[in-house]
């Protein structure tokens, strides 16, 4: 028997959960080392997967398939195509950076890592499942730990935010469940395997009814307007690593679900409904960036910018052609890493200044130059500067979308202008401008009594630097040499685009 490579990827965090569970809570160093080792190992495996995946042959590789519950046609069926490879890599990167960013978590550290790694297990599982039942199972496993993670370790209105997020996402999964069962019976194969479901011919009316059910179900998790309201509250209240994972990976899980299930399986429904989705994504892009402009809390700014960037992903998906969808997948990767960096940096800055309010800080560039440099680069990625990962992704999305919906796309580009405005203004206020102390007074004012400025904080320490550098490495890699990524994605996107009728 071949080594079950994919199973091993999600078993690594699962194994770490079991090991940590057996440790007494006082072994703080051991617990975080176990978490780190498992996530680095998982990252290494996803990197290997990226290189070992045969991008010329394309299609589904590394397949493992065993019957599981034969009465219902459920099999344990995992495999990867080009899109999965990219998203698994993203998950590996973000979880490693996330564990490093939670290095100093002190409050109930054992439970924190158990839940964080359980969530990671679920995300890895979703990105490799090719049986819809298995897919749904991992999906739910990925969503639920979030409730406790935000509720216990969050800040602000954390209990409200945790409950709102969980109920929104679970309502989405209720729709997904109904949709999956509908597909199961409509295909008449008595199987949840995606390759069989893909071959079935669904009645056009059925497709038009079930497409919105499934698309909205997944769209909630991708923060599709008007189902996005859980996301700013949730992201702003979550602890750093959870914001990173949630905005970086879980939202992509929603977009990936939209692409994998309704769009691939129900092409007639997609042709009918996707223009509507394009309109919604305009609202996402423009409203999200306007929202980010209006916010004063750093985390809310990043959260709204996520809503706006996920709109670009949705716009790419709705273009129905290979360029647009491929761009959307690349944007998922790029935005995942970028937003991970953003949340990590916001967490680190908050750890030093003890405030997330933009007005209360300023002139940080001279005090934390390394963090400031990372933040500036991330901001420039966000506004789509060439040479960084945001540029090729957004360019591809807009080229693809322009072919399908010229007017809509032109309206969407205003979102980029607004993004440039709020990002540059944010950078200016935070890092340049007047130096301020933690109490918001300008440095040197009478209010800043004595010396708290010098003693309070230093620049990035080694652990933080490694986390940030890891993320930045991939932003630069995609930005400077996107071809390997584009090829891998293209091999998987082309068949979907062909089914949808666009090229």
């Amino acid at each position: 028997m071949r080594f079950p490579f994919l199973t091993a990827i999600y078993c690594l965090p699962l194994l770490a959960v079991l090991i940590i569970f057996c440790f007494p809570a006082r072994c703080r160093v051991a617990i975080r080392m176990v978490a780190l080792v498992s996530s680095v190992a998982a990252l290494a495996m996803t990197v290997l997967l990226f290189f070992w995946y045969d991008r010329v042959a394309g299609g589904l590789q590394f397949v493992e398939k065993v019957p599981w519950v034969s009465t219902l046609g459920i099999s344990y069926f995992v495999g990867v195509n080009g899109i999965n490879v990219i998203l698994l890599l993203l998950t590996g990167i973000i979880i490693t950076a996330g564990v490093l960013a939670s290095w100093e978590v002190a409050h109930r550290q054992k439970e924190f890592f158990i839940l964080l790694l359980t969530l990671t297990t679920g995300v890895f599982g979703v990105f490799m499942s090719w049986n819809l039942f298995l897919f749904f199972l991992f999906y739910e496993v990925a969503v639920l730990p979030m409730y406790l993670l935000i509720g216990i370790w969050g800040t602000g209105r954390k209990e409200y935010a945790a409950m709102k997020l969980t109920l929104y996402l679970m309502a989405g999964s209720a729709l997904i469940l109904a949709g999956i069962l509908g597909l199961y019976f409509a295909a008449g194969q008595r199987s949840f395997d995606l390759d069989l479901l893909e071959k079935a011919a669904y009645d056009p009316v059925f497709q038009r009814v079930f497409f919105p059910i499934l698309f909205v179900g997944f769209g909630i998790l991708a923060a599709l307007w008007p189902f996005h309201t859980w996301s700013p509250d949730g992201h702003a209240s979550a602890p750093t690593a959870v914001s990173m994972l949630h905005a970086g990976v879980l939202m992509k899980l929603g977009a990936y679900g939209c692409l994998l299930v309704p769009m691939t399986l129900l092409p007639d429904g997609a042709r009918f409904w996707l223009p509507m989705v394009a309109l919604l994504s305009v609202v996402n892009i423009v409203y999200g960036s306007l929202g980010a402009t209006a916010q004063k809390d750093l985390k809310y700014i990043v959260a709204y910018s996520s809503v706006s960037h996920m709109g670009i992903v949705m716009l790419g998906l709705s273009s129905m052609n290979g360029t647009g969808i491929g761009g959307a997948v690349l944007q998922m990767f790029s935005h995942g890493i970028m937003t991970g960096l953003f949340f990590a940096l916001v967490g680190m800055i908050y750890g030093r200044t003890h405030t997330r309010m933009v007005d209360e800080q300023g002139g940080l560039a001279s005090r934390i130059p390394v963090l400031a440099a990372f933040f500036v680069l991330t901001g420039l990625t966000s506004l789509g500067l060439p040479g960084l990962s945001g540029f090729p992704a957004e360019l591809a999305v807009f080229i693809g979308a322009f072919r399908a919906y010229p007017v809509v796309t032109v309206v969407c580009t205003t979102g980029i202008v607004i993004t440039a405005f709020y990002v540059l203004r944010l950078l200016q206020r935070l890092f340049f401008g007047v130096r301020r102390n933690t109490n918001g007074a300008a440095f040197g004012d009478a209010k800043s009594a004595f010396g708290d400025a010098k003693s309070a904080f230093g620049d990035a320490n080694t652990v933080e630097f490694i986390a940030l550098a890891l993320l930045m490495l991939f932003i630069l890699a995609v930005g400077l040499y996107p071809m390997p990524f584009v090829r891998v994605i293209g091999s998987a996107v082309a068949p979907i685009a062909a089914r949808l009728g666009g090229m």
Partner: protein
Amino acid sequence: MSMAPWMVELATAALLVLVLLADLVAPRGKRFVWPTFLGGSLVILGLAVFVRGDAFLLGGSYAADGISWLGKIVIVIGTILAGAVSMDSLPIQEKYHGAYAALLLAASLGMMVLVSSRELVTMYVGLETSAVSLYGLAALAKRDVLSLEAGIKYLVIGALSSGVLLYGLALVYAAAGTTSLDGIRAALGHAPSPLSAVGIILVLLGVGFKITMVPMHVWTPDVYQGAPTPVSAFISVVSKSVGFLFAIRLFSVAFADLRYVWEPFFMAGAVLTMTVGNLAAIAQPSAKRLLAYSSISQAGYLLVGFVGTSSAGTSAVLFYLFAYTLANVAAFAAVIAFSSSTGSDRLDDYAGLARRSPLLALVFTFALLSLAGIPPLAGFIGKIYLFSAAMERGYLWLVVAAALNSVASLYYYLLILRRMYFTEAPLGAGPLRVSFPVKAVLLLTTVGTFWLGILPGPLMQVVSEVSSRVFPGP
């Protein structure tokens, strides 16, 4: 006539006598009662699982078939678990422990008769045997006003619904001219007469009492709250499961050809039951009342299974009964562990339980999440099985309603989690002392919940084989 098909019932009756004798030997203590009860019931469980011969007795009015086989297994498992959590936590004097164990066995004996009968009169006898024992059990803590109130309420509403049921059965008999289930199916045919239609609806209301279907659910919260907690666990799990098997016998067998008469009522009942149960559960301050409403909503999900085809629906209901039994017993056992250590039933007192007794909180969490249908627990696959039965017949709206209801139920389960994990424990609150039998029950049910959730294949094969034998054809 072979004794094998009767073995479980006979053994239960024998154990009932033995328990009474043990009580006689040591009248003031529970020293002999519980070992006899547990040892005997484990033997009966072995018999119930391994002795399986399909046979029709007494001219076809009593059957040992797949449904009675699975039914007896659920009954015996439920009885053992309820007995085990009772030992150290009953709020009654020691001298009543013998009577308690005997009533528990009498109730389960009646239920065994009920799930095995294929004829109306025998069914009714079994039903009343169990019901009368349950009234006694609910009121057993006779110093406790709430327990007495629970007993009286249960008795009055139970008697009322028995009357309704009996009236319905009489009308069905009048329409069909026979009391045998197969005979009724043949005699009623495909076209309902006014007589049979009214009869069927009255029967549904009568059965609705057992399975806590809205609007026949009103007794549930008061009885569950007032009765000793192990009795509530027993009623909510075993009595309700048996009610569902009773409903399968009546509706999926005897009235199967008149599906269009009762199916709308089942659909409306399913949606009403889960919605009312879930909405009412949200605001409950008492753990037992919350579990009462949650078990009402669980009945709503089970009713969805009846909308499916006889074969697929029945196997889904049977599977879910196992999942529900394990999760609900675990939840009640956690409540018993909490209240017998702290003396409180208020949910707000669960604050900080995760710091006081991490394992108890964890097990309670798993039980609640299984009830909410979260993977990889038994309730997840059970719900998918149930909903798929309704989806197979194209009832998208029903599936969406049921799935959204699961989300609503998650809300109040999460509120319990919030108390246990987010809130700090009151000052000076130490870890809880949980007695060994309760621990064992918690462990077994949790392992079972995971096992059915991760490897549901074997049980699913058994239930689908059973129901395809009871309902041959499509």
